């Protein structure tokens, strides 16, 4: 799940030049689940913009829970299903994550876009109304050593070899309401009978695998991950 939250309406309004005509695009997958850009929110955004005097040529979100970040879906929607109203627009306001924003650039052959949301993190949908971050998408998973809990994500300093001295009563120094990630890892390893894992030195991460931008070529049996750490090809046979 790509967690997103809408930008304040006033900030969005400020994006538009006088007389600029806009088409509002949502996403029926993650952004719908975040109530930041599903069909309902996209329609409502179009209405709110019109009330504030912005010319809206139309709005659309992919059908059947589709993801805006899939190029074929965005293309069908903007170049076929909503072609007429999309063509009339000077720009597109995107209510989705940043991937969806670029998908619209690709789908429209480079039309101007405006971000309607802030993309926050990739997270677990713990409840319908609560999403939280357990993975930082670093490209090199190390949770075998930590009982499945990621210290790079659960510790604000991303420490790999144990806690700093700053936690108090199991809470983090940056926020007394927040659990210390290393305390969570320690408790989890204790419950698994694997505290000994903590004695192993963890070398610095290969930040080449966390470089930007990265890409992935996927296949049913073989995939290749490209980053500044080089090409990593995995044969799943």
């Amino acid at each position: 799940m790509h967690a997103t939250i809408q930008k304040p309406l006033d900030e969005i309004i400020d994006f538009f030049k006088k007389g600029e005509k806009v088409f509002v695009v949502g996403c029926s997958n993650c952004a719908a689940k975040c109530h930041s850009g599903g069909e309902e929110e996209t329609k409502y955004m179009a209405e709110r913009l019109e009330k504030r005097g912005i010319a809206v040529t139309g709005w659309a979100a992919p059908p059947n829970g589709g993801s805006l970040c899939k190029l074929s879906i965005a293309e069908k929607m903007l170049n076929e299903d909503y072609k007429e109203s999309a063509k009339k627009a000077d720009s597109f306001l995107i209510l989705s994550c940043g991937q969806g924003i670029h998908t619209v650039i690709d789908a429209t052959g480079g039309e101007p876009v405006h971000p309607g949301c802030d993309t926050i993190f990739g997270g677990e949908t713990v409840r319908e109304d609560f999403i939280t971050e357990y993975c930082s998408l670093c490209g090199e998973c190390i949770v075998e050593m930590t009982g499945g809990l990621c210290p790079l994500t659960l510790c604000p300093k991303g420490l790999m070899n144990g806690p700093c001295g700053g936690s108090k009563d199991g809470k983090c120094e940056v926020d007394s309401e927040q659990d210390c990630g290393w305390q969570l890892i320690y408790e989890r390893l204790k419950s698994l009978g694997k505290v000994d894992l903590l004695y192993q030195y963890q070398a610095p991460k290969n930040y080449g695998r966390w470089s930007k931008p990265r890409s992935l070529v996927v296949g049913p049996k073989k995939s290749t991950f490209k980053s500044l750490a080089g090409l990593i090809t995995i044969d799943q046979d």
Partner: protein
Amino acid sequence: MSKLAQKLKSGEFAVTGEIGPPKGVNIEGPLHEAKTLLKDRVVAVNVTDNQSAVMRIGSMAVCHLLKQNGIEPIFQMVTRDRNQIALQSDLLSAWVLGIENVLCLTGDHNNLGDHQESKGVYDLDSVQLVKAVTGLNEGHDLAGNELDGAPSFFHGAVVTPEYDPVELQIIKMKKKMDAGAKFFQTQAVYDVSTFEKFMNKIENFDVPVMAGIVVLKSAAMAKYMNANVAGVFVPEEMVQEMADTKKEDRKKKAVEIAARIIRDLKPMCQGVHLMPLGWDDTVPEIIKEAGLE
């Protein structure tokens, strides 16, 4: 070899002090205090590195000034603000400026300081930094490249004896030792019995430990630390002792308490690290009253 290294290796009880660089370029005050209050009383002086995540003069420059004034510095280095390249480069720079002691720390989070919107680096953690210094001493950098001339740092790290659960601190201390840490300074110790238990737990660790002594200025400070500062626990009797002291007598009481803790801790550890937090003028008296002259 640094004087600190010599002293700890000889088994002599070592005393270190600390100064915090100012925010701004007026360095004369702290330098004067170091010259008049710390010089020749302590074996070396820690210089904090943007302590509390508040931007100040850098530790390396102040270490260099101490050195020029005949005071041996301990260059504190946190991993919050610099990546591997900058950390290692600054270590080599420090060495050519005559700085021999390094203390490796993670550093308080940016969010606690005065540049809360800055990016925390944390390319390395404190254990990895210890290992990086060890590597430089061995003549290679973290990428495995050979150095044209290697330093010979006496590098240490920190541990918090009153941390709960202490096992987590002990595991990390062991990792720092294995990574090459040659000495440890601790977070503030007030409860001697807790410190004794901690030292018993690490009795197999063959490394000098210098207990941290933060000068207790008032009952309010004690209460604040108990409520807010990780790994610091001021026993209730001590809070009361301070509360029962008249304001004008507090400095005297602070000296008395610090000296008493030091005398009690002395048989258990290899040295003390004095952190007067602004009451630098108490340091000579604490050393005297603790019988460390």
